[in-house]
């Protein structure tokens, strides 16, 4: 066992060096495919993070109260709502505090709010829920209570976001699966050329009594090496391109969407494992597929 692994590894390196051009061609094709996958990955991760953040903002229901509602009445409302399933907390937000928050949000422009003659904001109860589905029930219940003016709750927005991300993830998954199959075909064809070049040797090995795995071993390791190199190259390229893009548009994205982009370190750390796993399995599968015909008997 030990000798055969050592033999296979040694042979794989010899083969890679001997078939440099072929190896480089394989590395190019796997890298190209990993880069496309990487593009999808970057998009999906950023959208996921954005949606999660948005959903974090939207997991509250704001119940606006009529100005004439008594505080005791408000307290009993808070108790009723606080006891509902999935509710993690209720806070009272007075109209004065709400105005302060508003001013804080506006920062330098807060002076404009000073000109308001009257505070237009209502007193409100903020109900935090753990699940979006629970928010539905809370909103419905609050609507039936007396002294409630309005219920603000971003149900449709959240549902739309969830739908979009589900769709994006599904689409990305299908495209990724397709690309992985394509890359296996490409790699297996490239490796097939090196197998052809060694058909005589394989033929002799079979007559001498080599097992199929012994014959496959060096090609398998060669495929995995090619996959590994491709993974490293593509991770590097993605990291470079992504950090360049970030330096160009991260500020704009933040201004427009109020959302930071996923930091490059986080992305690269995750991507490198995915790429290595994918690249190595593409290489391994590619070589097994390409060898099949040669090992029939």
């Amino acid at each position, binding site marked *: 066992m030990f000798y055969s692994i050592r033999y296979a590894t040694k042979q794989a390196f010899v083969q890679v060096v001997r078939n440099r051009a072929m190896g480089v061609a394989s590395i190019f094709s796997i890298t190209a495919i990993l880069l496309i996958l990487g593009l999808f990955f970057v998009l999906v991760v950023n959208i996921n993070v954005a949606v999660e953040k948005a959903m974090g903002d939207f997991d509250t229901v704001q119940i606006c109260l009529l100005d004439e509602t008594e505080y005791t009445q408000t307290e009993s409302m808070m108790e009723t709502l606080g006891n509902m399933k999935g509710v993690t907390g209720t806070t009272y937000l007075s109209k004065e505090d709400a105005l302060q928050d508003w001013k804080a949000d506006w920062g330098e422009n807060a002076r404009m709010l000073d000109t308001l003659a009257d505070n237009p904001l209502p007193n409100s109860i903020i109900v935090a829920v753990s699940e979006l589905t629970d928010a539905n029930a809370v909103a419905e219940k609050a609507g039936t209570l007396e002294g409630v003016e309005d219920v603000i709750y971003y149900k449709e927005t959240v549902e739309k976001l969830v739908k979009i991300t589900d769709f994006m993830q599904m689409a990305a998954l299908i495209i990724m699966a397709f690309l992985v199959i394509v890359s296996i075909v490409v790699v297996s064809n490239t490796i097939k050329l090196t197998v052809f070049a060694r058909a005589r040797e394989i*033929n002799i090995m079979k*007559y001498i*009594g080599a097992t199929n795995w012994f014959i496959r071993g060096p090609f398998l390791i060669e495929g995995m090496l090619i996959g590994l190199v491709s993974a490293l190259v593509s991770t590097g390229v993605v990291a470079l391109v992504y950090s360049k893009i970030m330096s160009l548009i991260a500020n704009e994205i933040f201004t427009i969407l109020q959302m930071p982009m996923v930091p490059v370190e986080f992305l690269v750390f995750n991507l490198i494992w995915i790429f290595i796993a994918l690249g190595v399995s593409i290489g391994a599968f590619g070589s097994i597929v390409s060898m099949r015909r040669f090992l029939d008997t």
Partner: protein
Amino acid sequence: MIKFDNVTKLYNSNVGLQNASIEIAKRDFIFLVGPSGAGKSTFIKLILKEIDADSGKIQVNNQEITTLSNRQIPKLRRSIGIVFQDFRLLPKKTVFENVAFAMEIIHMSPRAIRRQVPQVLSLVGISSKASKYPDELSAGEQQRVAIARAIVNNPTVLIADEPTGNLDPDTAWEIMRLLEQINLRGTTIVMVTHAKDIVDKMGKRVVAIEKGHIVRDEFGSYGYNNEIPSYRGMYQEGIFNHNVL
């Protein structure tokens, strides 16, 4: 050692071998003769389980091989050495490496390889060429390397498929003497040949196959007087001619 019991192999409707029964004992040295396309290749392919018989039983080393699974084939082939007309050496490996290759394949340790390969090279008489590459050797020397590779793992049977087909008469005789020597050490030898003079002079057991039937099995002579096989015909018939290169 090798036993065929009523073995039939058809290719579509062409006969490869029909109702063939034969027994080859340990230490036998047999010549397999017959016209091109008679069924000699089928016979050898069946021993190596390169093809499967349609009916009948085949035993190699007292083991029924018609029922072997694909997984068990390598083990069978390790007990059989094989030599080809065209030597089949790996051009990028030295003589030593070509022989060592056969041992690497069956997972022998580098130490065992370093010990055994020189012994076999000396047995076949090419110790001095151990570090040469095949294209630096004469045809006879290349065939010696091929024989060394075939016997380095101590097979019980050595199959020689026209081993003298590419050699001049003197060299051919040297190879025959080497095969005889290997036979004396206890290895069964099955040699396919068209070389009438060799068969006649050696006086060994001769099995003649014609149109898929074993037509003669006796000690003595080649028995085909008017057949002068062309080189081309012999090469086309070669059973291992599906080289891609």
